[in-house]
């Protein structure tokens, strides 16, 4: 079965593997969000996320298409917890999207590699015991932990950037984020336009790093 491509995908213009980022969109996660963008870009991988999906479309179909169009996916379950805003509700989106990915991988072996990220070891065995026997990458909730675990996950990737390179890209993204947000008209750091610009900046930074 041919792997579907999104209309917004590169379609051969730029030869870059995609990675689906299944992460929480909350203010306490911003530094790790930038770390994922920086780290993946250093590996020459293009991050993509459900925040790129425009409103009004059938969201679930678009998310599944997005997952299918990616070579890799990273599922960060470190903040699968109760959202205290009324009515208090547990957050199911991330484990649900992980389930979709696992099903896609099972039905199409060898086309997709998925990785589960957590901040605490063994917590996943309680929150999602079906994953028993799966290696979970523990990033300890910090930026360097994300870089370390991306490097551990992507040992077979073509490019193997040093952590210092990821750190340099991360610092530049962090520094430029306020200007990028202003340019996008303010609002959430998780807006689609902000994400596109951060991703492009990270890619350009990675290219600059390798050329110096």
């Amino acid at each position: 079965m041919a792997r579907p491509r999104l209309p917004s995908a590169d379609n051969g213009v730029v030869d870059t593997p995609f990675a689906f980022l299944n992460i929480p969109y909350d203010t306490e996660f911003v530094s790790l969000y930038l770390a994922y963008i920086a780290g993946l870009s250093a590996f020459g991988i293009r991050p993509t996320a459900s925040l790129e999906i425009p409103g009004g479309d059938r969201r679930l179909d678009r998310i599944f298409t997005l997952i299918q169009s990616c070579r890799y996916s990273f599922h960060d379950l470190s903040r699968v917890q109760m959202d205290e805003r009324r009515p208090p509700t547990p957050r199911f989106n991330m484990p649900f999207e992980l389930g979709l990915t696992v099903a896609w991988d099972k039905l199409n072996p060898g086309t997709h590699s998925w990785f589960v990220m957590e901040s605490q070891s063994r917590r996943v065995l309680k929150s999602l015991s079906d994953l028993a026997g799966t290696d979970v990458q523990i990033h300890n909730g910090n930026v360097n932990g994300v870089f370390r675990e991306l490097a551990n996950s992507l040992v077979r990737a073509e490019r193997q950037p040093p952590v210092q390179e990821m750190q340099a890209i991360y610092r530049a993204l962090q520094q430029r984020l306020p200007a990028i947000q202003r340019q996008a008209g303010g609002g959430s750091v998780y807006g689609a336009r902000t994400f596109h610009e951060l991703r492009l900046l990270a890619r350009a930074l990675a290219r600059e790093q390798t050329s110096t």
Partner: protein
Amino acid sequence: MRKPVLVEGPYDTIEALAEAGNISPERTRELVEMARESIANQARRTARSKARKAASNRGPTKAAKR
């Protein structure tokens, strides 16, 4: 010598990046410039800090000792 970046080959042009990134070519150019500036700034900072470290390892100059 620095290699030319983001201008060589069909994959690295501003237009290709802009098309792939859903961003206008003008804004793409700005972001690429931002990236170059950031890397240059970081390189300058690293060089300054290395120079400071080297100076502190050399100890006081002859003039200062007198």
